[in-house]
């Protein structure tokens, strides 16, 4: 604890931030934090010069109409409203910053500044100085237009809801008058009021239907929009005629209600549409923007984009590899799990190849870059990914297919009714009213609500169980899946090696072994530490990590060894080496005490869940980058008979495409970067919540609790949602089958028309609620 003039700080970082805030007069920040606990500021980076490079400007910076620069950033470290306040204020105080707007909900910031006064690097340094971090993202055109569309719908919904609610009050008076008597002049006043209210609903809120109808006619498809638009417009015109003629019943309320209800259904769909992911930006965040290149025996930092093939790059321990290459000098372990899914690090030495996107655990080496950044494995993976996201197959929703036939039938029936009535000696007016009443009564509200309401129920059920569907339409697609493709590591298995067998040769001090393995962050050592699950750590001397061998240390004059057979042999200890799993030996002073067998084991519920999924009639296939032995072993344990092994990320995606071409609908579940191509290609991509950010981004469903049990639940939920959709559509069609003949016969009076409108919608909503309760039970 540091004391400074009556204030207490946990570290120098916090103290530094405090003084910085005081100097800028922003100490009120601490009043606004309320009970939020602050964490110390993070490490400083030294890559800010990169933010001023022309390449960066070209990609992320926009110059707006007024000649100012604009950038979108994601601010890291925001955990309360005070953080937002602090960042905005700190930026506002800078010379040249015109606007800094931070969205608290998604931590995205938009900053407008004058480039001749202040540089972006200075702005980002400021954000970092007060303890946050910022990295740029590319607000894709897709995301912007999705947001604009959503806002547009909000506006239209607001107008429609306001007007319909008010029309309802007026309509109550109308219906009361219909039964108890009303003078014509009062009726006309009410009609005019309804007219005023219905007009913005039809022409502003309902504009989307006119637009949809226009495109429908243009493409020669009779869609639901045509039915809604013609029905509403005809009713509206007829009602104006009634109002002006001061005779008969006006139906402005029906106009407003149809538009509002159907718009509500459309709005639900828009809301549940998946937001375009900032996938690539998150990906580039994990890639170092600069690498250390050795030029003329000197180390210089070079932007990854400017590194040419053939350059010699220095790789430090813990660093991500940005470019493909071949090791020249040095050795060490590389974590390739992000690409292969393989949890065990791979030992690389001179002559071995390095792949971009992987991480050095302890390797310090020099490598010759073999491809430039744009052609490196990671970049080409991203390119492939973008491509497959665009081409993703979409199953047309059932309601859409149905509505086409429905709309055509209704329009024809209405025309037929009109003609029959007209030739069956009736005057034009009566025949026209009856014809229109068919359209009004065949209110597509229920049909339009059938799918959104059902999917909403499904989404809610999933969310409760930690299953996040990113888009409502995916429930329908998922219900029709025939194949489930599973990744091995991290999806079926736990992804980390676990001790499966221990041979104790002589009793030993567990605490000593625990201290030894705790000194390493190698997955095997971590697996043993988890197995022992002790807490007390003894102090060891001369701890030495041997690459690809193990750990050596001294404790009270004894030499302690823990590692693989090679380590033991190097110290003259004879061990047997035969096992299909990883072995860890523990020896003290040249005597072997214990042997641990470790391997990646399936999650506890995997076998059970896979059996449940197969019972639902879905073909389960396992794809893995791992070798045959361990792939078959795991598959046998969990009961999968179709296994494909030694697959590259591209091969996994190709397998999925091949299944799709043969007519299957494919669900793919995975967690790593090595699965993203396959996830993006599948009809439904499912990511584990603990998986990599990119995998979560490209997938359609996220399982927050990482279990296959919830995967099986997700399939169940999608199936019951789909049957609910079918039921709802059935109800609305049945409803129409009863009311339309009545309308054609001319038995529809205004009250029935109005009641039927809400009743059919209520039935659909009520049925959805019923299913919701039955599933919960």
């Amino acid at each position: 604890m540091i004391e400074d003039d009556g204030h207490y700080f946990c570290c120098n970082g916090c103290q530094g931030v405090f003084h910085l805030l005081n100097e800028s007069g922003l100490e009120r920040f601490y009043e606004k934090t309320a009970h939020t606990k602050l964490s110390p500021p993070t490490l400083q980076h030294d890559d800010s010069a990169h933010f001023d490079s022309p390449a960066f400007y070209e990609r992320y910076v926009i110059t707006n109409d007024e000649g100012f620069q604009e950038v979108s950033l994601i601010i890291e470290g925001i955990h309360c409203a005070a953080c937002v306040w602090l960042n905005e204020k700190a930026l506002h105080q800078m010379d040249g910053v015109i606007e800094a707007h931070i969205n608290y909900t998604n931590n995205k910031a938009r900053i407008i500044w004058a480039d001749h006064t202040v540089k972006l690097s200075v702005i980002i340094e400021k954000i970092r100085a007060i303890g946050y971090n910022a990295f740029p993202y590319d607000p894709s055109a897709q995301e912007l237009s999705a947001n604009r569309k959503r806002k547009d719908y909000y506006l239209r919904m607001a107008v429609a809801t306001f007007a319909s609610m008010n029309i309802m009050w007026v309509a109550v008076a109308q219906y009361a008058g219909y039964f108890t008597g009303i003078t014509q002049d009062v009726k006309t006043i009410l009609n005019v009021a309804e007219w005023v209210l219905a007009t913005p609903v039809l022409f502003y809120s309902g504009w989307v239907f006119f637009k949809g109808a226009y495109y429908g006619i243009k493409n020669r498809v009779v869609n639901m929009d045509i039915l809604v638009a013609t029905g509403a417009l005809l009713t509206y015109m007829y009602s104006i005629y009634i109002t002006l003629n001061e005779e008969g019943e006006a139906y402005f309320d029906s106009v407003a209600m149809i538009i509002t209800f159907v718009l509500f259904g459309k709005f639900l769909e828009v809301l549940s549409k998946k937001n375009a992911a900032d996938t690539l930006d998150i990906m580039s965040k994990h890639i170092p923007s600069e690498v250390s290149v050795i030029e003329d025996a000197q180390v210089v930092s070079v932007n990854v984009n400017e590194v040419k093939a053939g350059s010699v790059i220095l790789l430090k321990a813990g660093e991500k590899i940005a470019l493909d290459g071949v090791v020249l000098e040095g050795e060490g372990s590389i974590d390739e799990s992000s690409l292969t899914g393989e949890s065990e690090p791979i030992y690389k030495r001179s002559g071995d190849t390095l792949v971009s996107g992987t991480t050095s655990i302890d390797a310090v080496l020099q490598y010759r870059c073999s491809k430039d950044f744009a052609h490196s494995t990671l970049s080409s993976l991203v390119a492939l990914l973008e491509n497959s996201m665009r081409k993703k197959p979409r199953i047309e929703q059932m309601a859409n297919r149905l509505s086409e036939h429905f709309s055509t039938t209704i329009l024809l029936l209405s025309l037929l009714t009109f003609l029959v009535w007209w030739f069956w000696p009736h005057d034009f007016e009566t025949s026209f009213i009856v014809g229109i009443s068919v359209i009004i009564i065949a209110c597509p509200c229920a049909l339009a609500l059938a799918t959104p309401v059902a999917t909403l129920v499904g989404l809610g059920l999933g969310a409760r169980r930690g299953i996040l569907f990113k888009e409502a339409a995916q429930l329908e697609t998922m219900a029709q899946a025939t194949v489930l493709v599973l990744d091995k590591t991290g999806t079926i298995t736990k992804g980390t090696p676990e001790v499966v067998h221990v041979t104790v040769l002589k009793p030993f001090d567990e605490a000593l072994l625990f201290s030894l393995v705790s000194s390493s962050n190698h997955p095997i050592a971590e697996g043993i530490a988890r197995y022992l699950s002790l807490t007390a750590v003894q102090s060891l001397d001369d701890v030495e990590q041997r690459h690809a061998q193990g750990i050596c240390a001294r404790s009270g004059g004894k030499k302690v060894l823990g590692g693989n057979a090679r380590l033991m042999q190097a110290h003259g200890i004879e061990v047997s080496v035969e096992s299909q799993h990883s072995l860890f030996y523990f020896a003290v002073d040249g005597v072997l005490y214990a042997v641990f067998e470790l391997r990646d084991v399936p999650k506890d519920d995997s076998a059970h869940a896979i059996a449940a999924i197969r019972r639902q009639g879905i073909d389960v296939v396992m794809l893995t980058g791992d070798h045959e032995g361990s792939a078959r072993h795991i598959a046998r344990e969990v009961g999968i008979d179709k296994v494909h092994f030694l697959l590259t990320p591209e091969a996994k995606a190709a397998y999925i495409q091949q299944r799709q071409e043969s007519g299957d609908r494919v669900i793919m579940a995975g967690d790593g970067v090595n699965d993203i191509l396959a996830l993006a290609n599948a009809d439904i991509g499912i990511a584990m919540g603990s998986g990599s950010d990119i995998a979560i981004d490209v997938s359609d469903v996220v399982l927050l609790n990482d279990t296959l049990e919830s995967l099986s639940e997700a399939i169940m939920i999608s199936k019951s949602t789909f049957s609910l959709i079918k039921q709802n559509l059935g109800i609305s069609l049945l409803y129409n089958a009863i009311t339309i003949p009545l309308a054609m016969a001319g038995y529809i009076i205004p009250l029935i028309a109005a009641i039927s409108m809400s009743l059919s919608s209520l039935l659909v909503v009520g049925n959805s609620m019923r299913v919701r309760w039955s599933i919960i039970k």
Partner: protein
Amino acid sequence: MDSWVIAMMLGASLILGGVALIAFLWGIKSGQFDDKEKFLNAALYDDETELNDAAEQERKKKTLQEKNYRPE
């Protein structure tokens, strides 16, 4: 006679409601509901300093804009 009362009442309430609706639409359009967290915490950002800050930003923008158009 009575019908004019109804007409007046209806007209007055529709105009009042319409004003509220327009205010709401303006709120949506100007992005006041975009960030629900910030919206809920609005009380924290609603004092004199915030106003001064906003005015200061406006002023800064103006001077910088003039600088932008100054011939080099």
